[in-house]
């Protein structure tokens, strides 16, 4: 080989910078800091735009105005009865859907042919946008709280029953074989194999249901105009009291964040063990 060595590329180590404790704290909490900064910027920009007259106060209001409206509203008993009204629809509707959809789903899914038979109708009903069902439900039960609860219920019901049926249908044959080889009774097979295997699917359905809960409430209340936060929103909009209207929207945002957050919890707790596509079933409307 040649007397002089061939040229080399040198790989150097990382240059370490001493970081102040503040910088280090920032680095490990960056996502939260930035997220809060983003939120704050949004409100600041909104307020500034409102003050500068860049946006029409009448329609878009401003953070301070909404805050004032909030302070006023929470002292009015009517507000709290509206909140209670809306909350009742949500909670009763959801729980009812859970209580009915899970057992029904388990039973339907267990008998494979029956599940095939129900599939088309279940999928069809799930695909119907719920606002479209409102006039029908009104024909049944009028404009009261029952109508809204039923609308919420229907959304939850189909969200939960479809994945549940799918879950029962796709229980691992291997696990069933184990149960059968130990001569387990039908009931035991069900409780010890089928139900635990279906839990992730039920959880996925619950997650979907939680995400769609509020749409039903809002839409039903806007339509019926009797009571609830939706009515508060509509009435405020009618008199161009956008601050109060946005406060109503904020209440729904709060409820939405809670339900979506809960949905996320459910998802993480029951850990998806399959790629998302399979469990992102039947997100109808």
């Amino acid at each position, binding site marked *: 080989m040649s007397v002089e060595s*061939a*040229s*080399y*590329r*040198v*790989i150097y*180590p*990382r240059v370490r910078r001493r970081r102040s404790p503040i910088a280090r704290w920032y*680095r490990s909490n960056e996502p939260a800091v930035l997220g809060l900064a983003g939120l704050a910027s949004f409100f600041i920009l909104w307020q500034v735009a409102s003050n500068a007259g860049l946006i029409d106060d009448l329609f878009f209001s401003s953070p301070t105005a909404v805050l004032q409206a909030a302070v006023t509203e929470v002292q009015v008993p009517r507000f709290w009865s509206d909140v209670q009204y809306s909350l009742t629809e949500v909670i009763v509707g959801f729980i009812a859907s859970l209580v009915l959809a899970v057992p029904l789903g388990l039973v339907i899914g267990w008998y494979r042919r029956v599940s095939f038979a129900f599939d088309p109708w279940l999928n069809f009903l799930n695909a119907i946008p719920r606002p479209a069902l409102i006039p029908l439900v009104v024909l049944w039960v009028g404009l009261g709280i029952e109508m809204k609860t039923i609308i919420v219920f229907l959304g939850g019901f189909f969200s939960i029953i479809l994945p549940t049926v799918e879950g029962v249908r796709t229980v691992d044959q291997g696990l069933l074989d184990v149960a059968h080889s130990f001569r387990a009774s039908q009931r035991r097979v069900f409780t010890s194999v089928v139900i635990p295997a279906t839990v992730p699917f039920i959880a996925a359905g619950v997650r979907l249901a939680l995400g769609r809960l509020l749409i039903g409430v809002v839409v039903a209340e806007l339509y019926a105009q009797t009571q609830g936060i939706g009515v508060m929103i509509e009435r405020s909009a009618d008199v161009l009291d956008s601050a109060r209207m946005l406060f109503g929207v904020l209440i729904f945002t709060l409820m939405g964040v809670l339900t979506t957050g809960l949905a996320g919890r459910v998802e993480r707790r029951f850990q998806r063990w399959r790629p998302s596509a399979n469990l992102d079933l039947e997100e109808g409307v």
Partner: protein
Amino acid sequence: MAASSELALSARGLRMEYRDRSSDTRLVAIETMDLDVGDGEFVSLLGPSGCGKSTFLKIVNGLLKATAGEIRLRRSGTGREDAMVFQDAALFPWYSVLDNVAYGLVCAGVSNADARKRAAPLVELVGLQGFETKYPYQLSGGMQQRANLARALAVDAAILLMDEPFASLDAQTREVMQAELLRIWNAARKTVVFVTHQIEEAVYLSDRVVVMSSRPGRILADIRIELPRPRLLEVKRSAEFTAYAAQIWKLLASQPAAADSGRHG
């Protein structure tokens, strides 16, 4: 033996530390490493999980930056000096076999058509002729790793870095792939740095086995394997082979098992 007395790779005083952001503790993956690899040599890095062997490869390849120490790579005329053969899930599911193999070339600026032309003979070399238009999900694990290897060969780098490429294969396929690798290495005459935690594999394939300790990693021994080449699979049953394996096994047996599953190993 090395084809020339030139060094393809030379590491001095290499050290790798991780700082855990939340608890602010330090994790030493590599305590210190001095390693020379000659041109055309086949060197294995062998050690328990988490001993820093994969970390070493990543530092050479540029995926990680060392905390301290330097590495010198002999320049080749043609682009990159090194190419990595990754462990698993190494092919892009959305590209055909041919396009996957051609990928390294495309990254280097070669046109798609030219890259495919240059990749085609390599697909043959690794025994995948006829599968050029297939997609990774249609291939077995062994076949995927062949394509993985072909991709690294296609960029014509002097040094091949192989990160436990056969770890996810079953025993039979693994043996076949080991023999295949030697055949290809003979034909392509590259320098290879091969990471594994299987003693048999290291002894069978290499000119030298560099044994590393568990974390914090450092070199325990650098053992020259004086088995004649070309090596057939039968050599695994020879007395010399068994002796080497036993020697290494004793070295490793004195090492504590790693606590975690070698995420940084």
